[in-house]
């Protein structure tokens, strides 16, 4: 319990630093949302009016204090481009991204674990090379490339999945999953490479341990030894590494969600950034950072559940 509180404290500290950095960086960005709303129709007079009505003219420190105060008190402000309470936007979009992230993680693990185990069992043989090369191919081309390939293959040519869009899970959960599948698959391919590598090295380490020899000496079949005895030990570290990839995933969904019109946090962040919607940028960045760190925390806790050594320690 103290361990959890400890971690939580460091998360809060980091989040505080994130607010500082985010605020500084977003305020360095030239251009503002008033300019984006007015576009090429803007003239100085009109811009000044709009800025005033959007509250962009307050001193920086006042804006920062108001923002952080709002974060704490639950008043997260309004998006300047969407004219909606940010909290409302975020609560919708985070569900979409959660579905996507979880799904892509599942896909990545479902591909990476067998591939990594296979490579570890046949270490330094051709199987190992095939496994690592195919994993490498996944990272040799950017996410969006795989995204478009998915759209062309599974939506256009095979017609198995919708090419784009998003359905509220509360309306049609099955539809949400269908819409999430292709972007999740594309993301999963990118993630897979790293996870395969880690599974392989973790499994290699485990397979050389004494208890594996003991298990074999007990007469257990190779299948039991590898898929039960060894994998049960590998799953903890692999999940921990997978958890650390959540940050990377939240970077990737920015591109992928925009590509698939799958409007989650990534899409929202991108819109906010492109439109210089500072309150929205700040809140999305903050939320993503918080989610990333809380997931890492959750993964650590999950590890405690999986691994009895830490459970009581």
């Amino acid at each position: 319990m103290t361990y959890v509180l400890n971690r939580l404290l460091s998360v809060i500290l980091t989040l505080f630093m994130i607010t500082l950095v985010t605020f500084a960086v977003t305020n360095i960005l030239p251009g503002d949302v008033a300019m984006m709303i007015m576009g090429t129709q803007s003239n100085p007079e009109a811009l000044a009016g709009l800025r005033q009505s959007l509250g962009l003219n307050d001193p920086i420190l006042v804006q920062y204090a108001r923002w952080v105060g709002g974060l704490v008190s639950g008043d997260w402000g309004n998006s300047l481009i969407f004219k909606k309470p940010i909290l409302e936007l975020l609560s919708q979009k985070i569900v979409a991204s959660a579905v996507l992230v979880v799904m892509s993680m599942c896909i990545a693990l479902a591909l990476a674990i067998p591939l990594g185990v296979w490579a570890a069992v046949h270490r330094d043989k051709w199987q190992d090379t095939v496994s690592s090369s195919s994993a490498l191919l996944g990272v040799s081309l950017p996410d969006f490339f795989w995204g478009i390939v998915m759209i062309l293959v599974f939506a256009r040519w095979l017609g198995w999945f919708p090419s784009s869009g998003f359905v509220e899970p509360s309306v049609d959960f099955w539809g949400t999953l269908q819409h999430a599948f292709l972007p999740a698959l594309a993301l999963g391919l990118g993630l897979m490479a790293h996870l395969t590598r880690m599974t392989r090295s973790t499994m290699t380490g485990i397979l050389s341990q004494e208890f594996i020899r003991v298990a074999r000496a007990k007469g257990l079949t190779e299948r039991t030894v590898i898929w039960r005895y060894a994998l049960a030990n590998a799953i903890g570290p692999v999940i921990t590494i997978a958890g650390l990839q959540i940050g990377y995933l939240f970077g990737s969904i920015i591109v992928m969600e925009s590509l698939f019109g799958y409007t989650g946090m990534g899409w929202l962040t991108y819109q906010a950034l492109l439109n210089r919607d500072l309150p929205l940028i700040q809140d999305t960045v903050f939320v993503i950072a918080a989610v990333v760190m809380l997931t890492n925390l959750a993964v650590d806790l999950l590890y405690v559940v999986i691994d009895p050594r830490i459970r009581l320690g």
Partner: protein
Amino acid sequence: MKRRDFLRSSTAVLGSGIFMGTSLPMAAWAEDAPVSGGTLIWGHSETTQNLDMHQTGTASSGRVLQNIHSSIVTVDKDLNVIPGLCESFEVAPDGLSYTFKLRPNVKFHNGATMTSADVKYSFERCKDPATGAVNFEVFNNVAAIETPDDLTVIVKMSAINAPFLSRLSENGAGVIMPVDSGPTQGTNPMGAGPFKFVSYEVGTVVKMARHEEYWDGPAFLDAVEAREITEPTTRLTGLRTGELHMINDIPLDRVGELQGDAAVQVKTWFPLNFDFINMNHTFEPFQNPKVRVAFDMIIDKEALMQGALWGQGATTPSPSFPTSAAYNKDLKQRPQDIEGAKAMLAEAGYPEGSLNIVFKATTNYPYHIETAQILVEWFKAAGVNLTIEQLTWADWLSQCWVDKDYQMTMMNFFSLWESDFLYYSVWNSTGAFNYRAIKDPVIDDLTAKARITVDDAARADIYKQVQQQIWAESHDIILWFRNGTIGAQPAVMGLDTVVHPNGSNLNFHKVWIKA
């Protein structure tokens, strides 16, 4: 977020789009009688942002909201201002008051009947700076709004504002909202348009349903779903797989391919906007007209249009709307003459290899990047070293538009602007959109003179002279008019009614789906 056009603005004279062509799988569709029913699924190229018609500046939101709102006046295909929610309008001889007679029994989506109070409310809301309306300055000279009875509105002006009516016909300023609906317009837009707002999932879809009591008769479609799909390939795929009935903004390079495809119909219209290359007049070399003219001579506009627009447009030496009286038909673009350009540059003191120019192009318009790349090759041949800097839209706006921190760039504007607005704000030295810092006394004089010239023909003549001067001095290099595009399933009917005369808005009132 790409290809965002900003239509909001200002102006007056609206021209009708000239339909370039519709490629149709079947010739006989027009003979079918429209049937009612069905939901049209539209793959919208952009993200709808603010749903409040007054506060929204982007074409994307306007394109959708156009179906929810009706304007007090609008334009016909010949771009004449015609009554919309009013039966008639009248301008006092002194030009200081406008009288609108409203249509009786116009129903808002909430069931209420429109009265003069709603009009007064809408105008005042738009005028009030606290609203943050992007068109607030349309009402700058409005002194008072009187409502003698339920169906009469009199707008009193403190000074003459000739383009007032034309600018009211723009969707932002002239829309009528029910009294006190302002605070909820952002979340639940309400007006008197052919479709009612149903729901909006940010970034995903706007759903609209037929307004049965629409003053001009109910629409055929039960509902319209505007799905927001910003990625061109994805949008195109959606049309091809049949997930979408219709998409707007077909990537220009794909129009030819789709026109050859019997499974979809493609509609293109002309013109959507014009593009021009800008040279910053505060940048030393560009203060010399010879350099600007030489630069014009380096460019083969037709080849550039074929290269960057894949032929989806037409070159023009003038930015005036092609059918407008002000369009100077005598003007011809300079043909490409690289040797001549070299000579002229040398004469201007810039021999081969001495000019290094940075061309800032925004990734918001991918064809600008292609244009720039083609230019680099020609300029290289002419001994000018052009390097490209790609900017996001926000960076372009802040660097080029506001801070004028660039040497060369390019931009596009809607073609439909009223001449005064167009030439005064863009080329007059005090113009609001003179981001090139052009200071040409000839143009300043001409544009000022036009403002006080009452005779239309004489005014048109003055603007022709302005065009001549822009061309002669090569203040900017006017390139072309660009086409607008729509792709649809063969079953979607009434596509020729969908494009609003302003060339950007889409109106689904008369669209129907064949069973």
